[in-house]
Structures are given as structure tokens and as C-alpha cells.
């Protein structure tokens, strides 16, 4: 393997493609270097649940064949870029476990649309990534296959639920990963692991083949170490899919305006967020610094109000569990999934299989949803939550009359230690700044802006865009990145050769 190929795990997509075009290395060598890198460092991180060596080499062979014919530029915008997928995304021939005992032995018979599109765009599929069980969590500690460790500090969580996706990119195992976000599950791990993490507007990316959690909230998005790579990945996976009727005819080129800068751009700050109880000062300082940097780059910083944002938390913890209760009813121990054998009637088989197949947090959320949708209770919580959704949506509509993008914290703090937050309601506060975006359905992303002064751990700022104006937040993120530099591979994994 060439010296340059060995360095490929640290490269961005454009660098990999330049190397392929110059024949400094082959796609096969990129795949081999990535596999060697994963084998060398993933035992200490545990981002991967499955490594798809054969699928990776098959895709690399297709790309090398195209290069041999001088057709690299026909291979797609992600040609030769290693990518890995959260384990709630079906990929034919792989296990799709959702980090649950319920699906431990499930083998996908088909591809999720986001996976199929990424591979059609030339990405090399490297494997499946750890997550909180069924995406219920903010730390990846609820994975029934054991937690993922944060590459910046192995004693801390990577965030969640897409913790494996964030950690794999932060450790320099892959330049790209996909995750899913129902209340913050892309952005919060992006912040904890110091990588670019994008939750597009609801409807930008098809969810077909992604195991559903909250169907009115779920959205798929990319992780990368640069804004440009994230935008390229979003180009590849976005757009209408007849198999997900919520997906929209999005034809935006998300890379098009990245270098336009922010001169004259109006960026909102939410004073109530900046003064929120529980927000650590080291996080607040980084958000304030980002605002100053954007102002210096020519943006106007404007105060905006989201008066109903405080209600978003409770609305989310009504809507999410109700939708999860409904979605997880499909695990019936008959067609697929865990089955506790030996029962004389179907009812006890259901009850035993679901009790043993689902972990504690999944059981809690299903039970909560079952309660909230029951007669009499529905009118107290579920219906008002949908009314609150109207108010939150109106808040954003109003705010975006004055600004192009809103700047807030992602998470109230940096990555916490394993076991540090044990009660469910405290864990739920991890998502206090991210949840309202899912409720309203607009886009939000985390951009790493350096380390907190107290903990020395990565801090992300959240950039929020109006619905279907995701290019706004990507352009602001690119302007900040131009000043601060691209996301770094976590220091402990960045020294010396990539292998």
C-alpha cells in the first residue's frame, strides 16, 4: 500500500478524489487502508457493530474499473469516499440491529434509500455504527452491545443516539457517516465529538428503510470533518423518494454557496437560550465567540425571541413516545425479531418476547406512549402537544422574517462521563436546545468551534435554518469554519501515520 493511501483515513472527500484521479492510490487501497484503520483503533472506541469488508471491496472495484476507463467523474460526488451507516439503516446483506436484542439476528433484505443513494453516489460502504437502542438516548449507553467511547476522552460518552456515527468520523476511521435525528440525535453527538453534523429540514432526505422512531420528527443526515464534505453527502442523499411520501422534491446543490461568506447575513441569537438554566459557561462562551466571529466577517447579529421554546421539551416527550409506541408495535416476534420460544398462546409469546427483546429505555418509552394515548389522557397531553407544535412553528416563522439563520448552543454542556447521568429526566435535558427544531421541522446543524475552557472537550454551536433553506446554515457554518479551521481528528488518534 502506498504511503498516500495510508494517509487516506485523514483525508476529506476532495483529497481522496484528487488522489484517485492522480492515480496516487486506488479505491481498493482506500478501502484497505480504512479497514486496517478500523481494525487498529475501533477496539478502543467501539463505534462499529459490523464491518462490511466484502461490500467495501466490491464498491472499490467498481470505482477502480471506472477510473481505468477514465470515468472517475461519472462515479458520483462521493466516489471513493468511505462511509458508514447508523445501524437503524437497512443495507442489504448487513445486520440492522438498532443496537437492540430485538433485532440482533435481523439480516436486511433491502437497502434504505439514503444508503442506496450514498452508494450510488460512489461512497464505499464500510459498516454499521453503534447507537442508543432504537435511538432512545443521548449517550449511546443504552446500546445492548455496549457503549461507544468518545475519541476525545475514552472515559466519556460520544453523545447519542448517533454516537457511533460521530465517534467514527471524529476518530478518523471514516470521513463520512450517516445518522438520524429525532430530537438532537445527530447534532448532540456531533457537538460532543467535535464533528460537523447536519439534521436537514424534515422532508429533505427519505427515511424509507430507516427503522422508524418518531415519524413526524425523524430525519436522516450526514456527519463529516468539513462543511463541504457534509454538503456533498447531503447532495447525494437528498431528494424525493416515492417510497417516503414525506420526502420533497429538493434539488438544491448544498455546496453551491459555501464560499459566499456572511457579509450582510442576518443571524439571530436567542437571549432566553443564552441565559438558560443548566447551560455551562464554557459552552455559552463559545457561542458568544462564534457570534463575534460572524459579526467580524460582516454578519449582522440580531436578537430573536422563540417564546414557546420552553414548551418544546414537554411536547417532544409527549409526541416522541406516542409515535414510538405506535412504530414499535410492529415487533411482534412472528415475522422477524426476537422470539421467546415455548409459549402455548400468542399473547404470552408477544409479552415475553417484547419484555426480553426491548431494553429498559425502550420499554419506558413504549409504556409512556401507551399511557399518553389512552382514553382520557390523550386530551390532557397529546392534543395540547400538537397545539404547542403550532406555536413553536409560528415562533420560527416569525423569527425567520428577521434573520437568515439562528445561532444557539447545541447541548448545554460538553461530553459527560459514563454513568454520570443516570435518571431518565436529567438525560432528556441533553436535548433542550435541539428538540424544538424537530418539532417545527426545519434544519439544524452542529459545527465544532473548539474546546471548552473548563473541560477542554469539543463544543459545537447550533445553526438553525428556515424550513427547506438548509443552504443558509451550511453557508454560515462554512464562514465560521473558514476562520476556525476544519474539524480535527481527535488528538489521541491523530498522531503519526493514520495506520
Amino acid at each position, binding site marked *: 500500500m502506498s504511503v498516500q493511501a495510508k494517509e487516506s483515513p485523514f483525508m476529506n472527500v476532495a483529497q481522496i478524489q484528487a488522489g484517485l484521479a492522480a492515480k496516487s492510490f486506488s479505491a481498493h487501497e482506500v478501502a484497505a487502508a480504512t479497514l486496517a484503520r478500523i481494525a487498529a483503533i475501533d477496539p478502543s472506541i467501539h463505534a462499529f457493530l459490523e464491518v462490511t469488508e466484502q461490500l467495501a471491496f466490491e464498491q472499490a472495484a467498481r470505482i477502480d474499473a471506472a477510473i481505468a476507463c477514465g470515468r472517475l467523474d461519472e462515479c458520483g460526488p462521493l466516489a471513493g469516499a468511505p462511509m458508514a451507516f447508523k445501524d437503524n439503516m437497512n443495507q442489504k446483506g448487513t445486520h440492522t440491529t438498532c443496537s437492540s436484542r430485538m433485532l440482533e439476528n435481523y439480516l436486511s*433484505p433491502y437497502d434504505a434509500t439514503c444508503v442506496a443513494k450514498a452508494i450510488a453516489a460512489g461512497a464505499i460502504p464500510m459498516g454499521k455504527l453503534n447507537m442508543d437502542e432504537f435511538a432512545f438516548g443521548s449517550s449511546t449507553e443504552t446500546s445492548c452491545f455496549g457503549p461507544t467511547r468518545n475519541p476525545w476522552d475514552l472515559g466519556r460518552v460520544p453523545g447519542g443516539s448517533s454516537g457511533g456515527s460521530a465517534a467514527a468520523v471524529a476518530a478518523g476511521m471514516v470521513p463520512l457517516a450517516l445518522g438520524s435525528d429525532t430530537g438532537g440525535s445527530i447534532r448532540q453527538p456531533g457537538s460532543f465529538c467535535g464533528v460537523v453534523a447536519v439534521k436537514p429540514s*424534515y422532508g429533505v432526505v427519505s427515511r424509507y428503510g430507516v427503522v422508524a422512531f418518531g415519524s413526524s420528527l425523524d430525519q436522516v443526515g450526514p456527519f463529516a470533518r468539513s462543511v463541504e464534505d457534509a454538503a456533498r453527502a447531503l447532495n447525494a442523499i437528498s431528494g424525493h423518494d416515492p417510497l417516503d411520501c414525506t420526502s420533497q422534491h429538493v434539488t438544491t446543490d448544498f455546496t453551491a454557496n459555501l464560499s459566499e461568506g456572511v457579509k450582510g447575513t442576518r443571524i439571530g441569537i436567542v437571549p432566553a437560550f443564552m441565559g438558560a438554566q443548566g447551560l455551562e459557561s464554557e459552552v455559552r462562551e463559545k457561542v458568544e465567540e462564534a457570534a463575534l466571529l460572524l459579526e467580524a466577517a460582516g454578519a449582522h447579529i440580531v436578537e430573536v425571541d422563540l417564546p414557546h421554546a420552553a414548551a418544546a421539551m414537554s411536547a417532544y416527550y409527549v409526541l416522541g413516545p406516542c409515535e414510538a409506541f405506535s412504530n414499535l408495535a410492529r415487533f411482534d416476534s412472528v415475522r422477524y*425479531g426476537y422470539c421467546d420460544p415455548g409459549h402455548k*398462546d400468542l399473547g404470552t409469546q408477544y*409479552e415475553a418476547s417484547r*419484555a426480553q427483546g426491548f431494553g429498559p429505555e425502550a420499554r419506558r418509552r413504549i*409504556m409512556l406512549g401507551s399511557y399518553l394515548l389512552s382514553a382520557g389522557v390523550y386530551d390532557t397531553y397529546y392534543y395540547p402537544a400538537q397545539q404547542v407544535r403550532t*406555536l413553536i412553528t409560528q415562533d420560527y416563522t416569525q423569527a425567520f422574517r428577521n434573520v437568515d439563520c439562528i445561532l444557539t448552543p447545541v447541548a448545554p454542556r460538553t461530553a459527560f462521563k459514563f454513568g454520570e447521568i443516570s435518571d431518565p429526566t436529567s438525560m432528556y435535558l441533553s436535548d433542550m436546545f435541539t428538540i424544538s427544531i424537530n418539532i*417545527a*421541522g426545519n434544519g439544524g446543524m452542529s459545527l465544532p468551534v473548539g474546546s471548552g475552557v473548563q473541560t477542554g472537550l469539543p463544543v459545537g454551536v447550533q445553526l438553525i435554518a428556515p424550513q427547506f433553506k438548509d443552504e443558509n446554515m451550511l453557508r454560515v457554518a462554512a464562514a465560521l469554519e473558514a476562520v476556525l479551521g476544519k474539524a480535527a481528528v481527535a488528538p489521541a488518534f491523530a498522531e503519526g501515520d493514520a495506520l
Partner: protein
Amino acid sequence: MTQHVNEKDVRTIAAYARIGLTQEEVAQMTIDLNDIIDSLRPITEYDLEGVEPTFHPIGGMSNVMREDVRRQGFSQDEALANAPRQEEGCFLIPAILGGESA
């Protein structure tokens, strides 16, 4: 803290959700659910008189139709490949109408 659900309620909810819980699990679940439901109180305190609900984040969508064309589905083998138990090309379950249980 208000008690929203007691252990009997939790057993009823578990029956709806088809999750079998031991007595010990019912006790812990009762504590957890009361705790979580308590944290949802803000939703009950808003003045929402006259506010229309939004059930879906994309406004203005109505029925989404597609052309009624045939497309290849899973074969019987593929559809059964993940079944925990199967027999003669069918999913196998315990008897639900009396008689010999599988």
C-alpha cells in the same frame, strides 16, 4: 410529586403495549413513569384556547399518490428469511383458535 399512575395502571398499560413485566419491574416502572409524566406538566399549563393543532411538520401536504404500477416485491423465501419460526412457507405461531398449539 403527583401520582399519575399506580401499579395497577402500569399493569394495564403494559398489557396494552404487550410487554410482560415482573412485579419488581412494575414497581420501578411506576416510579419512572410518574417522574416522567410529572416533567410533562408544562404542556398542561399553556393557554391553548383556539390554537389549531399541527400534526405534521410539512404544511399543505394532502394525499400523496403514485402511479398504480406493479413492482417486484420480496419472494416468499426473502419474506420468511428473518422469521423466528416458520413451517411450509408460512410464519409459525402458537394456536390462536384453540386446538393443538404449535
